[in-house]
């Protein structure tokens, strides 16, 4: 295991109630007779990274979509930004949440920078990142005129993350951000996500590539058949550093 970046926080920093940024309380989500989530309760702290694991159909994407406000829970409550004393429904605070899905959530006919300019113009009054800067931060060339529909899968993933970053969200919900991505690009993305912790942003990410994403995790939340199986500390919470299993290929 190779040390990549020194931690900025001591391990096992005490959890304070005021640090809770999002909370799901006894949340169930039903699709007809099928329960995608079953009485899920969890609290998410500001500035932490949560890795959400589980097999297909465990409810990972449903949990993220519920936190994003794109799905309404059938039962239970979701509260966002509770630390500020005013608990909000996710949709009321949507401009402060960044959600990345399996799909790109971008127009295929637009280039990366055109897509980002369009979305940035929908966040008026918010201090947005420049589209060129957002694309550069994920390793894409802003001058690339090719439409997103002609990007490779890995490039689409990166452009999709750039869209999420554009509004400087305080809560990032990333659904399978590393799928179809080569190992170097994935490590680059992990390093970028790691920098968000210093800005006290909270990250929830789902993945099937546990080994890849685990070094970033303060906590690992495991779902099984729509219910919480476990919520345990991850490697970052114990060590305070981002380490890559097998070493960093860039080194």
């Amino acid at each position, binding site marked *: 295991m190779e040390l990549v970046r020194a931690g900025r926080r001591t391990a096992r920093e005490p959890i304070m109630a005021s640090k809770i940024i999002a909370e799901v309380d006894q949340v169930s989500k039903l699709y007809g007779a099928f329960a995608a989530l079953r009485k899920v309760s969890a609290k998410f702290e500001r500035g932490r990274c949560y890795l959400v694991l589980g097999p297909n159909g465990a409810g990972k994407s449903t949990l993220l979509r519920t936190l994003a406000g794109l799905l309404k829970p059938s039962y239970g409550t979701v509260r966002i930004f509770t630390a500020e004393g005013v608990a909000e429904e996710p949709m009321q605070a949507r*401009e402060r949440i960044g959600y990345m899905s399996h799909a*790109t959530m971008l127009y*295929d006919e637009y280039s990366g920078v055109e897509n980002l300019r*369009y979305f940035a*113009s929908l966040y*008026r*009054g918010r201090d947005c990142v420049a589209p060129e800067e957002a694309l550069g931060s994920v390793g894409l060339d802003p001058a690339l005129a090719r439409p997103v529909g002609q990007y490779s899968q890995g490039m689409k993933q990166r452009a999709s993350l750039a869209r999420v970053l554009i*509004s400087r969200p305080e809560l990032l919900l990333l659904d399978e951000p590393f799928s179809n991505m080569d190992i170097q690009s994935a490590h680059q993305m992990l390093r970028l996500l790691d920098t968000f912790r210093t800005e006290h942003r909270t990250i929830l990410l789902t993945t099937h590539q546990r080994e890849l994403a685990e070094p970033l995790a303060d906590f690992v939340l495991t779902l099984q058949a729509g219910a919480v199986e476990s919520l345990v500390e991850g490697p970052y919470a114990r060590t305070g550093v981002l380490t890559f299993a097998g070493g960093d290929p860039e080194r």
Partner: protein
Amino acid sequence: MKAAYFLTHLAKDLRLEWRSKDAINSMLFFALLVVVLFSLAFDPTRAVSRQIAGGILCVATMFAAVSALNQAWARELRNQVLDALRMTPAPGASLFLGKALANFLFVTVVELVLAPVFVVFYNLQVIGNGWLLLLVLPLGTWALIVNGVFFAALSMRTRNRELLLPLILFPIFIPALLGMVMSASAILTGESDPVLWIKMLAAYDVIFTTACMMMFEVILHAE
């Protein structure tokens, strides 16, 4: 501020259509085909043309517009772009209005191309106040488009949306279609006063535009 959001959405829809020309091409081809086929099938005299031209123009536009309206939200559904739009603070009404105005402009372009073809194939000569057609056509087109974009959004998450849209849209559009056909015929024949029908069209537009804008937010955030 909301006008700025609306202009952003409108500019996006116009740019995307300018690049692909999907909607305009499909509408134009279909409408031209209907106009030419009707003219060949009935071979109307000049007097008969004046009686039926308004109806044929409206119906040709209506069917052509439905082919585009069915695809009105296709780009937003692809890649879950609609979810990204739902996450922005931009009001849903601005998205709806931008989409409606963009589609209105596409159909207007088709009507502008269709008009001279119509005059030639149906040997039309306007007896009434021809300039009133410049009021009737946009009012009727807006009535069709505002409802079409709204019901296309309503049916976009259903499996049979291409069948569902005309089934919902056409009955709702009947009063406007009647106003459009009657006022166009009145203008072309000069036999009656079209003003009452034009006023009815304008009232229809105001009522349905307001209702659609008010209800669109609910549809946008429906699961």
